């Protein structure tokens, strides 16, 4: 028998973006004592001046609900219009059911397809790639993509390598049908031989099988900063350029560059290696948001569009990279002026 499948592709684009930043802004001065560091050292190494930490009783899903309702409203849609939810995160504290289904309950939409993905700081770009393919193949009309993290729950405030880097926040986009191609081909992959450069450990089982907990801490992020920095500055620029080329653009014809906000020095290095001209607007949300992993790109996109409304509808190169080590990049058309605030 022949299985039938609708073959005519449906073009897709980002219809809207929404963001949620927790209220509490935490300056470097609040963290430095426990890690024997200084505001100057942190700013020089990372560009981070402050970051947002969620309140103790504010959950990952609380944050994701805010950013998602904003994105859905800005697209001129209601939660019932969402056919699928892809939730990129590494900090949802349940193995099952998924963060995506908990979000559905908050949106009062009980029926959309919903699942989580684990691709760390590349999670948002992985999810955009999937959402684009889902819309193109007509398996869903409107896909809600969420990148959200509450990394303060999984960061050791005494770890000199990570305490000042990671932060909390949520970003959402709605990806839906469009007249023209609004999302270019994705360049993605992994360098899994450096898998141990960023880890969340111990595992659930190690924790369970060690009842007295004496030697075994709660799972926190551990990062080999220089290994990750080296990988990022060496490997990511060529990947981003391939994504640009795949979309038929060049550094000269690109409008905006929104890399994962890992470290301002990595962003500097990427801009230099890719030879991006001054005409390209570069997102630098890291300075006041820290590294929010899967949330960093939509948060940076939202901040940029709030500051520069003229950038709505312009071309933007997104590239995410992180624990795995995994990466993904694609060119998108930034969402149009919102249908509601």
């Amino acid at each position, binding site marked *: 028998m022949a299985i039938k499948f609708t073959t005519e592709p449906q073009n897709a684009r980002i219809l809207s973006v929404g963001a949620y930043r927790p209220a509490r802004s935490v300056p470097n001065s609040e963290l430095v004592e426990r890690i024997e560091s200084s505001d100057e050292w942190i700013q*020089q*190494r990372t560009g981070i001046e402050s970051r947002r930490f969620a309140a103790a009783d504010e959950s990952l899903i609380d944050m994701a609900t805010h950013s998602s309702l904003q994105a859905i409203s800005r697209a001129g849609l209601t939660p019932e219009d969402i056919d699928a939810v892809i939730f990129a995160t590494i900090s949802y504290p349940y193995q099952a059911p998924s963060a995506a289904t908990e979000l559905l309950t908050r949106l009062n939409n009980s029926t959309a397809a919903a699942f989580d993905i684990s691709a760390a700081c590349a999670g948002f770009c992985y999810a955009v790639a999937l959402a684009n393919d889902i819309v193109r193949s007509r398996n869903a009309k409107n896909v809600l993509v969420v990148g959200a993290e509450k990394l303060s729950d999984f960061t050791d405030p005494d770890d000199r390598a990570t305490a000042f880097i990671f932060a909390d926040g949520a970003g959402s986009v709605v990806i839906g049908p469009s007249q023209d191609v609004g999302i270019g081909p994705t360049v993605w992959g992994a360098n899994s031989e450096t898998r141990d450069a960023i880890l969340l450990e111990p595992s659930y089982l190690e924790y369970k099988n060690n009842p007295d907990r004496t030697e075994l801490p709660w799972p926190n992020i551990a990062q080999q900063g*220089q*290994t990750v*920095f*080296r990988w990022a*500055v*060496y490997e990511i620029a060529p990947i981003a350029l391939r994504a640009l080329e795949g979309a038929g653009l060049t550094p000269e014809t690109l409008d905006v560059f929104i890399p994962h906000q890992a470290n301002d*020095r990595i962003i500097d*290095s990427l801009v230099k290696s890719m030879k991006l001209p001054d005409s390209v607007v570069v997102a630098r949300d890291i300075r006041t948001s820290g590294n929010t992993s899967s949330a960093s790109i939509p948060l940076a996109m939202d901040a940029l569009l709030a500051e520069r409304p003229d950038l709505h509808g312009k071309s933007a190169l997104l590239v995410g990279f992180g624990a795995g080590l995994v990466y993904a990049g694609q060119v998108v058309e930034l969402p149009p002026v919102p249908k509601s605030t």
Partner: protein
Amino acid sequence: MALTQDAVLAGIKEIVVEVAGIDAGIIAMDKKFTDDLDVDSLSMVEVVVAAEEKFGVKIPDEEVTKMATIGDAVNFIVNNS
């Protein structure tokens, strides 16, 4: 073909000037990356990545931590090219 010390030093100078934004005149074999040239650990990574590309050598992380001076880097590259 092995690279000469002079050729590698000239190449390293170019890289350090580009990465650290300092004057080429003060770069010499005995200068320390951190103390004399203000090249911090992350800039050092950028220098190493650029040097690997320029000279076609592999510089492992454990070697990078041993490179205190310009001369240490130049000699490693000359001996491993």
